[in-house]
Every structure is written in C-alpha cells, then in structure tokens.
C-alpha cells in the first residue's frame, strides 16, 4: 500500500506537468474550471475546435491515448501513468469529453476486431482527435434491452445493406466514423443474430438528427439508415457474433475508469465555503456540515475505489463488473448535490441563466443534466443488476425471450 510516486512515476509526473504548463490552452482555464456537468461550453470559442486542437497537440507530443500502443497513436503507458497524466491534466481533461466514446469504446473494439491495415489507417487519427467516432447501439425500442435492436444488415455481393434507426447516439452530429451493431438473422434468438461493423458517417443514406434534451442541449442524436452500403471488410468479428463483439466494447467502457466520474462534490464544497447563510458562513451550519460530510465520503470512496481498480489493472487483472459502481453512485449523487445546492439558495435557486444565477448557474445546469447520467451507458437499475448478478452471483432476471427466435418476440404490451 503506497500512495506516493515511485522515482520513475515522479519523473513521469514532472515531465507531464512541464509539458502541460507549456502547452495547455490556458486562456480557457478559468472557464473550464467553472464549467460543470451540463455546462462545458466556452463563451468566445467553439469548444469542439479547442478540444480538437488540444488533442492534436497532445498526440504530436506523444500524450494522446496514453495506454494505446504507439503503432496506433498511443504511448504504450502503464495504467498508473495514465492516472498521473489525468491528475496533471486537471481541468483541461474536460476538453476530452467529446472523444470519450471513440477513445474508450470504439478504439479498443477496433483494436480487438479490425484488420491490421484498418487499425493503422483509422486509429491514429482517432487518437489525435482529427477524426471523431460514435457508437451506434441503442434503438428506440431497445433501451436497456440492447440485444432487442432491429436495424437490419443484409448481404448484397461484397457489401452489406443497412436499414433502420439508432437513437441516443452521443456526438453523431460531429462524428466521422461509428461502430454499428445490426441484426443479420432474425430467425434465431436475439443475441445470436447480431453483427458489428464500422462505417463512415458521411456514407450515403446516413441521416443524423439531433435530439433536443430536457436541459435544452443537443448532445445526442437519432441516426437513420436508408440502404446504407458497408463493405464486408469493415465487419468487426464474425457474422452473427456481434453480441460478443459488443461485450468487448462494454468491457472497455469500464476500462475508461480513472477519468473520474463527476459527483458535484468539489463544486458543492467550494460553494458552501463561500456562501453566507443567515448572516454566517454556510459551512459552519450543523446541517450543512452533515450533508457535506456525507457527500465527501461518497466522493472519496469512489476516488479510492477507482484507484484500487487501477492497481488491479497494473497487476494484470481485467477490469471487472465491480467498476459499475462509479456511475451508479455518482449519477444519483450529482442529482442530489444539485438539488441541495439549490435548496441552500432558497427561492433564488429557480433562476438558472449563467448571467443571472448564483455561481453562474452551474448547479441549475447540473440539475437539468443529471437525469441523463443515471440512464446513459446503462440505467441505475441495470448497474444494480450487473453488481448483483456478476459480482454477488445472484440469479439473472427471468428472460422470457431468451430462446425465442427474434421475429417471434412480441413487440407490443397490454
């Protein structure tokens, strides 16, 4: 047990720190620091441009996708070095938000299943942020039942022809490529007839329609496929083995630990430290202290849980289902934290604009974004099922459609 850097780690940290100090886009530091879940926008610059420029700069100097192999645009760094980088990158790491899906899920899936020439062609520009990737899994009728998807892929010569619709696709409106899960055989049970591909999002027949969310932002999209042709060499894994390929993707999602899930706690602690309440500092109020302490131990518990997971990775262990707790705990916590911060503001909490509200409306923005966190990438309920079944070994939910051919599964309730 040792929380201190080894000499090599300290040297790595010093190099990273010096490079960041010399190269980070400092003109945006203050705004990034004040941004929080639901509000990572820059007033006088397009955040996508700023993020891409920072990512490219990192890639050119060997600081992009640290844990990826060098041949594919990474650095071949250890899990601990990745953590050190993230600690040093600090608020500038918030700029990576639009690359998370590509770097955390699409890239590793390509590494596991794409042909070598595709890996060399597509991965370096993904690592450097020049090309953005999205992940096309969810569908309107699917929700948590991912394997219930209906988008069809039919073989036609050397191509596959895709028809159907995806939804909740983060970043599809600025993505260049995507990985796509389709149904290739509806006559077998649902998990057995799926196939994975990657495709150019500019292909003919792909239409992206942004969805306006409850918080007013449009980060997610509907994506429609009308006779979209994908060459067979862009298939990932075997025909009808797409479920296994997607499990690799989801497993790698857990690998994206260490990035640190937002809990809202640091923002709340800062706020309570400066807020005056009934003539005294809020942080001296007994009930405020109790709330803060309870959130503090959740936030630190999550932090050290992910540190433990990284230690396990360093020992060569695979990321396990226990890492599902990060999103589960942080999701509802950030929602509660936002509600509590607004409660402290009293009636003034209803004002939400960045110009008009307390602390630039960060808690109001958090409140309106938080419900999404509890759903995206698996609902709280699915996370609890994963923990109960795969960590604690409890029986799986009863699945009445398990052995039924997909085209015989009922599609409407009542």
């Amino acid at each position, binding site marked *: *047990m*040792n*929380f*201190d*850097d*080894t000499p090599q*780690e300290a040297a790595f940290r010093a190099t990273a720190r010096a490079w960041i100090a010399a190269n980070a886009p400092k003109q945006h530091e203050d705004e990034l620091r004040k941004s929080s879940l639901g509000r990572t926008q820059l007033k006088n610059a397009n955040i996508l441009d700023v993020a891409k420029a920072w990512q490219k700069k990192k890639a050119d100097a060997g600081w992009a996708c640290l844990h990826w192999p060098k041949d594919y645009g990474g650095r071949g760094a250890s899990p*601990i070095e990745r*953590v050190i980088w993230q600690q040093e990158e600090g608020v500038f790491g918030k700029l990576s938000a639009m690359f998370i899906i590509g770097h955390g899920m699409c890239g590793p899936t390509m590494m596991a299943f794409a042909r070598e020439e595709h890996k060399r062609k597509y991965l370096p520009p993904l690592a450097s942020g020049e090309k953005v990737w999205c992940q096309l899994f969810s569908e309107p009728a699917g929700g948590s039942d991912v394997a219930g998807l209906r988008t069809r892929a039919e073989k036609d010569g050397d191509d596959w022809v895709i028809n159907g619709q995806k939804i909740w696709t983060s970043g599809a409106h600025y993505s260049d490529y995507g990985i796509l899960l389709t149904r290739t055989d509806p006559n077998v049970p649902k998990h057995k007839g799926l196939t994975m591909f990657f495709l150019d999002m500019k292909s003919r027949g792909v239409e992206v329609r942004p969805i306006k969310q409850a918080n007013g932002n449009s980060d997610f999209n509907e994506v429609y496929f009308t006779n979209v042709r994908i060459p067979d060499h862009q298939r990932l894994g075997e025909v009808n083995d797409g479920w296994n390929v997607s499990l690799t993707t989801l497993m790698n999602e857990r690998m994206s630990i260490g990035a640190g899930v937002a809990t809202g706690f640091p923002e709340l*602690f800062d706020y309570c*430290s400066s807020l005056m309440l009934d003539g005294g500092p809020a*942080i001296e109020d*007994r009930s405020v*202290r*109790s709330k*803060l*302490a*309870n959130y*503090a*131990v*959740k936030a*630190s*518990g*999550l*932090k*050290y*849980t992910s*540190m*433990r997971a*990284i*230690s*396990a990775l*360093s*020992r060569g262990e695979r990321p396990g289902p*226990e890492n599902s*707790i990060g999103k*589960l*705990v942080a999701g509802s916590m950030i929602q509660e934290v936002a509600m509590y911060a607004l409660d402290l503001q009293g009636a003034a909490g209803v004002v939400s604009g960045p110009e008009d509200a307390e602390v630039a409306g960060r808690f109001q923005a958090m409140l309106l974004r938080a419900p999404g966190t509890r759903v995206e990438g698996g609902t709280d*309920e699915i*996370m*609890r*099922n994963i*923990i*109960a*079944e795969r*960590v*604690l*070994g*409890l*029986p*799986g*939910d*009863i699945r009445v459609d398990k052995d039924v051919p997909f085209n015989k599964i009922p599609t409407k309730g009542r």
Partner: protein
Amino acid sequence: MNFDFSDDQKQQLRDQARKFLGEKCPPKAVRVVLDGKSPYDKELWKGLAEMGFLGVAIPEEFGGAGAGHLELCVIAEEMGRANAPVPFSSTVYLAAEALLIAGSEAQKTKWLPAIASGEAIGTLALFEGTGNPSPKNIKLTASNGLLNGVKKPVPDGAIADFAILAARTGSSGRDSDISLFLVDLKAGGVEAKSLTNLDPTRGQAELTFKNCKAEPLGAAGEGWSILTQVLDRAAVLMAFEQVGGADRALEMGRDYALDRIAFGRPIGSFQAIKHMLADMYVSATLARSNSYYGAWALSTNAAELPEAAAAARISATQAFQHCAKNNIQVHGGMGFTWEFDCHMYYRRANVLALGLGSLSYWEDQLIDRMRKKNAA
C-alpha cells in the same frame, strides 16, 4: 503507487487470521458471551495472543511482533468479520495506541508486553454520559494525582486491568485543561459496575473514581491533543472492523437470498432483493476504499491522517449499519429471530457506530479538517 493490500505477506496474514477465527470463533462461541455465560471469550483471547495478533503493531522491544499498522488493519477486518467477543478494540486500538503515542518508557515497558501476551486488558475511559468527545464534556477531576468522578460508558470497563482516561486539571476553559492519566484498575479506588448494553458481546461499564491514585500519561495539558490522535488512529482500525462486519452481513444476506425459495424462485432472483444487496455491496465497497486510504495514512503517519481517519470512520459506520439492517430485511421474519445470527451483527454495527463518538462528531471533524487543508 499501489492502492491495495497486495503483498503476499498480508494476504497470508489475512488467510491465517480468517482460518483461525473461523475455527475458534464460530457464531456459537459468540453466543456463549451473548447469553451472558462469560464476559468475554477467554480461550479466544489467549489464542489471539499466541497467534501474535494482539501485539502485531507493538514494537518488538515491547514484546510485540513489530509488524505495523497495515497488518493490524488486516487483523481488525477479520475480527469484525467474525464478530469476535473479546476486548480487542478497547485494548489494542485505544489503550495500546495511547501508550505508543504518549506513554513513558516505564509505562510502555509495563503494559505493552502484557497486552501483547494477553495478560492485560486495557481500555480508554472517555465518556461521561450523553455527549460526544469534547473537553467541555469532561467533568472528572484530577488533583494531586487523585481522580474523582464517573466515566460511563467505558468499553470493557468491568474486565479491564487498566484504563487510560481524560481528566480536568485546569479551569482556563481551554483544551489545555485536560490531561491524560493511567489507572491500574486492580489497585483499588475504582468501583466498576457492569451496564446492560446493546451488544453484550462487548461489555460496557460505569467506573466511579473516589480519590483514586493515577499516574499521568503524557505531558500535563496535552491530554486533548493526545486523545485526538488516539481517536484518529482508532477510527481507522475500527473502520476495518466495521468493513469486515459489513462484508459478512452482505455475505449472509447473499447466501440466504440464494437458498430461500418463494413464489417458486430463489428470492435473490427478484430485483427488489437483488438491488438491496447491490446497494449493500456499494456501501461496503466505498467504505473499504476509504479505509484503505486511512490505512495508508496511518501506516505512514501521513499529514492526511486526520482527514482520512474521519472519512473512513463515517463511511465504515454507515456501511456496517446499512448492511446489518438490510441483512435482516433480506432474511424476512427469520432475520428477526434470536436463533439466526443477523441480530448479532446488527447489535455490533450499532455499538461500533457510537463507541468513538457519534457520526455527527466525525462529520464535524471531517469538515473542519477539509477546510483546514483547503485554507493551507
């Protein structure tokens, strides 16, 4: 960096402790004490001494194994898992730590080897009725080396050979009014009365001091500052005991959910039960992670110890209470019977939650310490 108890040595120690406690401290042994047939498990206490567990963090020059506090954390977790009915926390986390921090050479030489060998039971007499640790709540006085006043509840106070206690030695209204003393409880001048309590497997007593002779422990006026350090260290060690208990309660609930059939299915296949157990796992995991950080801070005497200790304490208290109460819920009516073991963990969880001061005390400490760090 390495954030885990990954050394083979510690794994080995854990396996050894778990095996030993599994054999010597099954639930039926705990019940002997629970039913009032003995104030603590004397055989087990002797065995723990022989295994070297009582002196694991005591330096070799004072008769211990000199292994260190990480090793003690490993043992503490297993003690909690086994719900061991012995005065381990009062003797090892409180009395021994106070001696290590502030004891004179003579005090250490007299008492530490006796603790390590299982010959002496020690305790820390802190509370005087309702209230949290605070210099204001200490009324017992010391003048001319004579103590007068009442301490209650004192953990294991009726079976302890010696007690360390805080007494008022000044009237300035400052923390420096408080000094620590060591009292040989077998030397006379102290009346001990056993108190009925929530968890009979960890006895509580009222100690009445009437012109009782006492020797100072540490410098006069330093009592409160020493006591704070003792409580912080004990908070980390106790957190491991709580994490062990939480894990065991979760395991009991999980096993029952797999065995018990209702409506034609194991109840563990119902989401309501699965999700309750998942939430127990989450609280136990967060507590474990906070405790690991505390263990690191304790074993390296890091500047982060006060904050880490408070976080571990709060998190582990919540986790053990959460897991113990929901373990009963998973068991349904059976969980509420005397015959099932669920209530033993429920009792212990709630007694450990209070023994070093309540949650509100530690919440206060945590926020104070975080503010201090941010201001620095």
